[in-house]
C-alpha cells in the first residue's frame, strides 16, 4: 500500500470517527478495503482503536444490555459475574493544568460553567455571560478542564438492573487569558497579519442594544485602532461638504439648490441627525438601496430573460418597509415563479450553466465569499475550501429549474414565452470533475450541515434556513461589510467580497460586534445605516491631512477611517444628480418614466459578457466614454439650457444681482457649496474675459453674460468634483 493511500485511508477513518465522512469518502474507503489486504487490516485496526477508546470511556453497553428480567437471575450468580464485568482501566484524574501563554494579562476573563447543560447546548447570547472564544493558534492550549472520574461504574456494580444514570462530569474552565483588544489591534502594524484570525473566533464583548450606545461603540473602536497605529482623525467636514455627501449616500443624488440652502442656513444643533433620519424615511433611500442591490444581484444590463424592474420594485418595497434583511435573502434564495415575482428574477437570471453562476454569484454577493475559483480546483490559499465547497452549495440549486412555456395573454392577445422558476420534486446529487478527471459527487451541504434527503421542504428553502443558523451568520457579516463599504468606500476587508481566512480584516472586533448587533436587531437595515451615518467617522472631512498620514487604503493598506475616503459617483447617482442639477425635482426621479430614461442612459455604458459568472463590462470608469457623455451628452446640454433648466433660468435672470453672487449660486446648485474667495475671484475674472470676447463680436451684453454663466455651469458639472462623492 502506498504511503499516500495509507494517509488517505487514515484520513477517511478520521472523518468517519468524527461523523464528517462524505459519501465520497465512504466510496473510497470501500474501494481501498476491498482491493487491498493491507488496507483492510489497517482499517480494522483503526476502527478497533476508536471503538476501544469509546467503549472504555463509555462503560455503557456493558451493564444495561442485560434485560431487566434476567438481572435478578444474574444477581444470583453475581459474585462470579462481578469479576467478569469489563473493568474500567484505572482512571487517572488528569492534573489540573494551567498553561499560561506568555502574553500580557490584560482582560482576563473567568468563565464558570455550572452544569454541563450550559456547555452542551448552544449558549444563548446573554450580555455578560458569553462564552469567550479563545484566540488560539493550533496546538497550544490555555489550560484544560479537570475531569473527575465518573462514578458510573461503581453504581453499576451494585444494581445491574438500573441503567446507570448518565451523569456527565462537571466541567470548570480554568481562567482563560485572552489577548486584549489593543494588542490585537496593534499586532501587524499596517501589513496584513500573517495569520489572520478566523472571524468566528473573535471575542465579542457584550454588544449594546441602543442606537446611541452602538454609535459610541463604533466611535470607540475606530478611535482605538487609530491610536494603535498612531493616526489622528481629521476634522469634521463643513456643512456644505457633509450635506452633499449624505444626500448622495442616502438618497442617491445631490441636494437641490433649495435643500442645500435650507440646510446651510439651519442653525439647529442636531440638524445633521435630523437630516439623516429624514432621508432614511424617504422613498429615495429605499430606491437607492434597491438600485444598489439590484445591480449586485442581476447587473445593470438589460436581460431579456428577466424583468429587472420587478426585482427593483420588490427590493424597494422591502427597504421602504424596512423588512429584515434576513427575510429578503430568504426570499431571494427560495423564490419561485415568473419574472413577475420580483425575487425570482435573481435566480432566473443566473440558473444557466447548471446553476454555476447562481452558486458563484450567490456566494459572492450574499456571503462575500468568492467561490468561483473553487469550482475547478481546491482554493490555492484557503485551506479547507475544496472543490466540494462550491459543488455542495451548487447542489442546493439542482432541484430548481426553469420551466419554459408559451402562455396566451388575453390582454395583449398574443402568446408569450414565459419562463418560470420551479422546484422539482425529484432531485439528485450533483456531479463534478476534479482536476484529475475523477468524477465526484456532492450532496447539498452548507456550514457543515448536510441536508437530509428525506425532508419535504424544497432544497432552496432549506438553504435559506441554513444560511442563518449561526449566531453570527456569514450572511449578516457580509451585509455589514458591504453596507459599511457603501458609506465609507472601503469595507473591513479588501477585497470586499472575498472574506475568508486569507483576507485580513481591518477591525475584526468591530465587525463582529456590528454583526452581532445587526443580528440582534433582527436584521434591521435602517438601524444599521443609522449607526454608520451617525458615527463620528461619517462626519469627517475627506481632505487629506496636511501633515500626511499612514492611512492609505488606496495603496492596499488596511483602512483606518481617519478621514472620509473619496468615492466616485455611481452611474445612477451621476444621472440623478445631473437631473437635479438641471433643475429637475427630486420626486420626478422616482417616476417610472425617469427610471426608464435612466436605464437607457446607463445602457450606453454597460454590456453583458458571456462568462461563467454572467459578468458585465463597463465603460463607466472615468475614461473617455464617460467623459464624452458628460461633455456632450444630452443631460448636460439640458442642464445648461435655461429653457429646460428652471433653476439656471432664475440665476441667469438676475436672482442675486452681481456676477459674483450668480457665480455663488451656480456653485451651490452644482457642487452644493459656495466657492472659496480665490475660486470666486478667478471664475469671475474668467467670466468677465469671456463676456468681453463675445461683446467684441457684437453679441449683446445680456446674452454674452448669460452665455458666460452657462459656460461656468458647464464647467462645474464637468469638474471631477461633481463626479465624486467626498
Amino acid at each position, binding site marked *: 500500500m502506498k504511503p499516500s493511500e495509507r494517509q488517505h485511508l487514515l484520513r477517511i477513518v*478520521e472523518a468517519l470517527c468524527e461523523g464528517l465522512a462524505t459519501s465520497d469518502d465512504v466510496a473510497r474507503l*470501500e474501494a481501498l478495503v476491498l482491493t487491498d489486504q493491507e488496507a483492510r487490516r489497517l482499517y480494522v485496526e483503526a476502527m*478497533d482503536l476508536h*471503538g476501544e*477508546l469509546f467503549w472504555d470511556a463509555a462503560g*455503557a453497553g456493558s451493564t444495561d444490555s442485560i434485560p431487566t428480567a434476567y438481572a435478578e437471575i444474574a444477581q444470583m450468580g453475581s459474585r462470579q459475574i462481578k469479576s467478569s464485568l469489563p473493568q474500567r482501566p484505572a482512571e487517572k484524574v488528569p492534573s489540573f493544568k494551567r*498553561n499560561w501563554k506568555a502574553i500580557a494579562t490584560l482582560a482576563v476573563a473567568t468563565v464558570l460553567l455550572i452544569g454541563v447543560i450550559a456547555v452542551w447546548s448552544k449558549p444563548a447570547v446573554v450580555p455578560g455571560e458569553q462564552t469567550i472564544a479563545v484566540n488560539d493558534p493550533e496546538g497550544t492550549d490555555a489550560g484544560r478542564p479537570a475531569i473527575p472520574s465518573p462514578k458510573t461504574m461503581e453504581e453499576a456494580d451494585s444494581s445491574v438492573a438500573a441503567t446507570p444514570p*448518565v451523569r456527565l462530569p462537571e466541567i470548570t474552565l480554568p481562567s482563560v487569558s485572552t489577548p486584549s483588544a489593543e494588542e490585537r489591534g496593534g499586532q501587524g502594524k499596517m501589513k496584513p497579519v500573517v495569520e489572520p484570525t478566523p472571524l468566528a473566533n473573535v471575542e465579542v464583548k457584550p454588544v449594546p442594544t441602543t442606537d446611541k450606545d452602538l454609535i459610541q461603540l463604533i466611535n470607540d473602536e475606530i478611535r482605538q485602532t487609530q491610536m494603535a497605529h498612531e493616526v489622528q482623525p481629521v476634522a469634521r467636514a463643513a456643512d456644505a461638504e457633509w450635506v452633499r455627501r449624505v444626500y448622495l449616500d442616502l438618497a442617491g443624488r445631490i441636494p437641490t439648490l433649495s435643500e442645500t440652502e435650507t440646510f446651510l442656513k439651519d442653525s439647529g444643533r442636531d440638524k445633521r441627525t435630523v437630516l439623516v433620519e429624514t432621508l432614511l424615511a424617504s422613498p429615495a433611500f429605499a430606491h437607492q438601496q434597491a438600485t444598489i442591490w439590484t445591480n449586485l444581484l442581476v447587473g445593470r444590463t438589460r436581460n431579456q430573460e428577466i424583468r429587472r424592474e420587478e426585482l427593483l420594485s420588490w427590493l424597494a418595497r422591502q427597504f421602504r418597509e424596512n423588512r429584515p434583511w434576513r427575510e429578503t435573502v430568504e426570499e431571494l434564495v427560495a423564490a419561485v415563479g415568473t419574472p413577475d415575482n420580483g425575487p425570482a428574477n435573481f435566480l432566473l437570471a443566473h440558473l444557466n450553466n447548471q446553476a454555476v453562476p447562481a452558486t458563484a454569484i450567490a456566494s459572492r454577493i450574499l456571503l462575500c465569499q468568492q467561490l468561483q475559483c473553487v469550482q475547478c480546483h481546491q482554493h490555492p490559499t484557503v485551506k479547507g475550501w475544496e472543490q466540494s465547497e462550491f459543488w455542495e452549495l451548487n447542489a442546493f440549486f439542482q432541484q430548481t429549474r426553469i420551466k419554459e412555456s408559451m402562455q396566451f395573454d388575453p390582454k395583449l392577445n398574443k402568446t408569450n414565452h414565459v419562463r418560470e422558476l420551479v422546484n422539482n420534486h425529484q432531485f439528485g446529487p450533483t456531479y463534478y470533475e476534479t482536476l484529475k478527471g475523477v468524477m465526484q459527487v456532492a450532496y447539498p451541504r452548507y456550514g457543515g450541515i448536510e441536508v437530509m434527503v428525506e425532508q419535504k421542504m424544497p432544497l432552496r428553502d432549506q438553504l435559506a434556513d441554513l444560511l442563518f443558523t449561526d449566531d453570527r451568520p456569514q450572511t449578516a457579516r457580509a451585509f455589514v461589510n458591504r453596507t459599511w463599504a457603501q458609506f465609507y468606500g472601503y469595507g473591513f476587508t479588501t477585497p470586499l467580497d472575498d472574506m475568508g481566512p486569507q483576507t485580513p480584516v481591518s477591525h475584526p472586533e468591530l465587525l463582529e460586534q456590528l454583526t452581532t448587533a445587526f443580528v440582534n436587531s433582527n436584521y434591521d437595515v435602517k438601524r444599521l445605516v443609522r449607526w454608520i451615518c451617525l458615527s463620528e467617522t461619517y462626519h469627517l472631512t475627506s481632505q487629506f491631512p496636511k501633515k500626511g498620514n499612514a492611512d492609505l487604503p488606496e495603496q492596499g493598506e488596511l483602512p483606518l477611517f481617519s478621514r472620509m475616503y473619496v468615492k466616485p459617483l455611481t452611474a445612477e447617482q451621476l444621472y440623478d444628480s445631473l437631473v437635479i442639477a438641471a433643475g429637475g425635482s427630486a420626486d420626478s426621479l422616482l417616476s417610472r418614466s425617469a427610471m426608464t430614461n435612466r436605464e437607457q442612459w446607463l445602457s450606453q455604458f454597460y454590456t453583458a459578457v458571456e462568462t461563467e459568472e454572467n459578468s458585465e463590462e463597463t465603460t463607466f470608469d472615468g475614461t473617455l466614454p464617460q467623459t464624452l457623455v458628460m461633455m456632450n451628452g444630452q443631460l448636460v446640454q439640458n442642464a445648461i439650457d435655461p429653457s429646460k433648466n428652471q433653476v439656471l433660468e432664475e440665476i441667469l435672470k438676475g436672482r442675486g444681482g452681481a456676477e459674483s453672487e450668480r457665480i455663488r449660486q451656480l456653485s451651490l446648485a452644482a457642487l452644493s457649496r459656495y466657492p472659496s474667495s480665490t475660486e470666486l475671484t478667478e471664475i469671475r475674472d474668467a467670466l468677465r474675459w469671456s463676456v468681453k470676447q463675445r461683446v467684441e463680436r457684437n453679441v449683446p451684453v445680456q446674452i454674452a453674460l448669460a452665455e458666460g454663466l452657462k459656460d461656468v455651469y458647464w464647467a462645474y458639472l464637468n469638474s471631477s468634483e461633481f463626479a465624486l462623492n467626498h
Partner: protein
Amino acid sequence: MSSSVGNLSSRVPSDEFVQLFTRSQRTLYLFILAQVGDVHSAEEILQETNLVIWSKVEQFQPETSFLSWARQIAKYEVLKHRQRFRRDKLTFSEEFLSVVADEVVQQAGEQERRRDALQQCLEKLQQSDRELIQQRYQPGLSGKDLAEHLGRPANSVYQSLGRVRKALLECVHRQLSTNVTP
C-alpha cells in the same frame, strides 16, 4: 430499545451463559463497529443483538463457540439496520461488510493484547494529548462539542485528535509486533 422483551425464553440461563455473554460484549461491539463505521449506530445494533441473544438462549449449544453464535446474530442485525437506513449515505456494501467481518474475526485473537497495548500507549502520550482523547470520548460528546467547549476552532481540534489517534495506532502496532507472546 424499541422491542419488548416479552419473548424471552422460559429457560433460566446458566451462569456460564451469562459469563460468556458479558465477556463477549466488547468483542461484539468492535465486530459491529468495524462494519458500520459509527460508534452510536454500533451501540444501537449491539443492543438489538443482545435482545435477540437473550431471546434465543435455549438455541445456544453449550461447548460450542459463543462468539461465533453471537457474531452470526450480530451480522444479521447489522444487515437489518443497514436495510432500515439504506438511504443514509454512510452505508457500506454487503461485500464490504462481509470482508470486514472476516478481518475482524481474524484479528480477534489479538484483542486482549491490543487492549493492553492501548493502555500502555495511552500512558505514553503527552499529558495534554491524553486529556484531549479522554475528553473527546466522554459519553455523549462529539468532536464538535469538544471544540466548542474548548473554544478552539473545530478543524484544529479534529487535526489534533487525528494526530493523537494516529500516534496511538502506531504505538499499538509497534507493541504488538515487538511483544510476541509465545
